[in-house]
């Protein structure tokens, strides 16, 4: 039995704050950022209270629901606007509001010179509201509202400095790529409705056990498409790099810690569909495996610090997606990696923002170097995140990533060995590119502009970074000790059922292998980047050239989708102009020509009218006469 409780505050508070700040306009400039931060913090506090309340309940009573109102009631489609707070949702609620609040605090300082800071905070709160709705909705349709809401917030925030055309284009690109994924989600909802007659999670779960394999695979594939769009997975990943056009706190919150992980949430939430369809699971695994290598390769060649981190995000979410395709235990590890990643990647993004703040918004890492001397706190917090993403024990990534590698090996047969090798290779490349970022930015010789005067960021900026660094250090250990998270998520994803069964390789062997690969990656990077030219060298390997261009994903999209699409629209516009409009214009033309000829009859001479009338009458009489004769 689930209990009923009041959950609407989670969404209502930030939504209200966002609306208030947008409506009040400049009047709220003085206190808007503080208000928004307080709202975000209060949501976090409510989340913590709910979390402890859940701890106090046992078993199935832990999940809480709230029916808000009857939303759609059309024939057999009955959808209530309802909220569901269960073991899975609360992880996200705490992550979103916790990291969100830290990033609000950071943004107060980071955006202090921006005249539109209030609008920025309004959008941030809008994002918090939408993201919480996404994770708290109790049906696919409610989730969809939040899903679109975060897409909107992401669009608004990527294009926050939309006076620069490139930034506005990046926002548009993200929006369009996300729409492609959204088509998948809406199709999945429609298929679910036709198959099960309901779109609630509970209803679909019930229906999934008796559904045909084809329908489940179709739903799974469509959900995967949706996840690929939102989580920047292959083949829809191209938007994430450009999304770095947004202010850095946005990149940290939306494009690293929370929104881009919505795909992982979606697949985990739909575990009953994927568990019942091995084909869909296989697709998930393939997409995850491709993306984790894809992102990692792109990350090795990017000189823009934010784009390197974005590629890394893509790759890490690839790990999570891959894990969700590995069955019940994979979900729990995906969520664990998601949470630890939320800490260390957000922390590193904030570190990157701090560096940019001190370097006049320079993003080219070849212009950095030796910044640890002038930015010790940033370097330290970034370094902790770095150790976490590498998976060095006892930092957070060690627990979450090793579990995924382990589960990949355990998935059985050739597939298991293949996936395990890919995840290991990914870990190695991760170590290489993260070391590259670290060396280029904080170590080595200084390569700054004469005009740059790097300095440590103010307290409001380094405090959130420090808090996230603590998370990067401790979260993995805490979540893993006594399989805490796996047990916690057990009622939602049935994680326990296979975790304790046999392993292909003992965990310690996997850890040693992973650490060896990581060490190799680090060593190569350190050796390779002892000297760093300020201008990126041109005579590089083909793979580097390809990685610099995002492995030609943009060129591919442009050649395969954009150009033919443009041709198609141009052709359709032409057809519309020539055929449809032509027909309408022909009618007009005929009327015009006949009218201009007919009006000659209206010469204004009464006598000619009389003559015409007489002739007409004579003709009429003649006609009648002829007929009657």
């Amino acid at each position, binding site marked *: 039995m689930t209990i009923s409780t009041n959950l609407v505050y989670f969404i209502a508070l930030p939504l209200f704050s966002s609306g208030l700040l947008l409506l009040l306009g400049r009047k709220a400039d003085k206190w808007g950022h503080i208000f928004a931060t307080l709202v975000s913090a209060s949501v976090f506090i409510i989340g913590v209270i709910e979390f402890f309340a859940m701890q106090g309940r046992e078993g199935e009573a832990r999940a809480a629901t709230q029916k808000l109102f009857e939303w759609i009631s059309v024939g057999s489609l009955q959808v209530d606007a309802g909220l569901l707070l269960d073991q899975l949702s609360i992880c996200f609620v705490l992550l979103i509001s916790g990291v969100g609040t830290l990033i609000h605090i950071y943004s107060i300082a980071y955006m202090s010179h921006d005249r539109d800071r209030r609008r920025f905070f309004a959008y941030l709160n809008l994002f918090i509201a939408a993201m919480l709705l996404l994770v708290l909705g109790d049906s696919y349709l409610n989730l969809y509202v939040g899903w679109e809401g975060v897409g909107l917030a992401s669009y608004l925030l990527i294009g926050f400095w939309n006076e620069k055309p490139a930034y506005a284009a990046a926002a548009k690109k993200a929006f369009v790529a996300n729409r492609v994924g959204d088509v998948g989600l809406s199709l999945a909802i429609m298929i679910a409705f036709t198959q099960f007659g309901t779109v609630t999670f509970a209803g679909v779960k019930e229906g999934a056990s008796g559904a045909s394999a084809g329908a489940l695979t179709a739903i799974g594939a469509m959900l995967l498409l949706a996840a690929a769009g939102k989580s920047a997975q292959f083949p829809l990943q191209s938007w994430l790099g450009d999304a770095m056009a947004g202010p850095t706190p946005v990149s940290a919150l939306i494009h690293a810690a929370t929104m881009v992980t919505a795909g992982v949430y979606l697949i985990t939430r739909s575990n009953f569909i994927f568990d019942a369809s091995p084909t869909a699971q296989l697709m998930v695994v393939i997409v995850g495996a491709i993306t984790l290598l894809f992102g990692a390769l792109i990350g090795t060649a990017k000189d823009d610090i934010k784009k390197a981190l974005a590629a890394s995000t893509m790759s890490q979410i690839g790990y999570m997606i891959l894990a969700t395709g590995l069955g019940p235990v994979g979900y729990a590890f995906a969520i664990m990696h998601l949470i630890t990643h939320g800490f260390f990647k957000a922390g590193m993004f904030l570190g990157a923002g701090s560096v940019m703040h001190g370097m006049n918004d320079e993003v080219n890492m070849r212009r950095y170097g030796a910044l640890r001397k002038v930015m010790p706190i940033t370097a330290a917090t970034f370094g902790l995140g770095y150790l976490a993403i590498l998976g060095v024990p006892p930092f957070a990534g060690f627990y979450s990533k090793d579990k995924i590698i382990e589960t990949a090996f355990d998935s059985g047969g050739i597939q298991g060995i293949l996936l395990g090798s890919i995840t290991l290779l990914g870990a190695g490349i991760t170590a290489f590119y993260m070391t590259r970022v670290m060396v280029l930015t904080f170590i080595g010789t200084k390569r700054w502009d004469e005009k740059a005067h790097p300095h440590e960021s103010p307290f409001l900026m380094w405090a959130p970074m420090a808090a996230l660094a603590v998370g990067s250090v401790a979260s993995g250990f805490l979540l893993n000790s006594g399989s805490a998270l796996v047990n916690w998520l057990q009622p939602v994803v049935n994680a326990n059922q296979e975790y304790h069964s046999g392993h292909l390789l003992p965990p310690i062997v996997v850890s040693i292998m992973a650490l060896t690969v990581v060490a190799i990656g680090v060593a190569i990077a350190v050796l390779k980047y002892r000297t760093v030219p300020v201008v990126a060298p041109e005579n590089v390997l083909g793979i580097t050239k390809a990685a610099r261009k995002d492995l030609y994903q943009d060129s591919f999209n442009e050649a395969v989708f954009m150009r033919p699409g443009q041709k198609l629209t141009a052709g359709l516009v032409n057809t519309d102009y020539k055929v449809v409009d032509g027909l309408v214009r022909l009618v007009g033309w005929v009327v015009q020509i006949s009218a201009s000829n007919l*009006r000659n009859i*209206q010469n*204004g001479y*009464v*006598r000619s009218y009389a*003559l015409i009338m*007489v002739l007409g009458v004579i003709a009429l009489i003649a006609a009648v006469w002829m007929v009657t004769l």
Partner: protein
Amino acid sequence: MDISNYIYLSAILFTIGAIGVVVRRNAIVVFMCIELMLNAANLAFVTFSRIHGNLAGQVTSFFTMVVAACEVVVGLAIIVAIYRSRRSASVDDANLLKR
């Protein structure tokens, strides 16, 4: 006398009236020609009434006369008004409505 002669007379009068309307320019003359056509029609009504032996035609001719009287009042007023404003009673001069 053959009663159909009245019909011929009516037709001749109507034709004269119609030709008058078409060829004459003076509004007064045109107007009188219209009266002639109306009266030709009246004659035909009365004749047919006689031929068929019922009174419907006779009654109709009264209606025609009433209409004609009204028409004269309005028509003459218009002609006078036009003459006052344009110093001409030619129907060809009053062609402002063309095109």
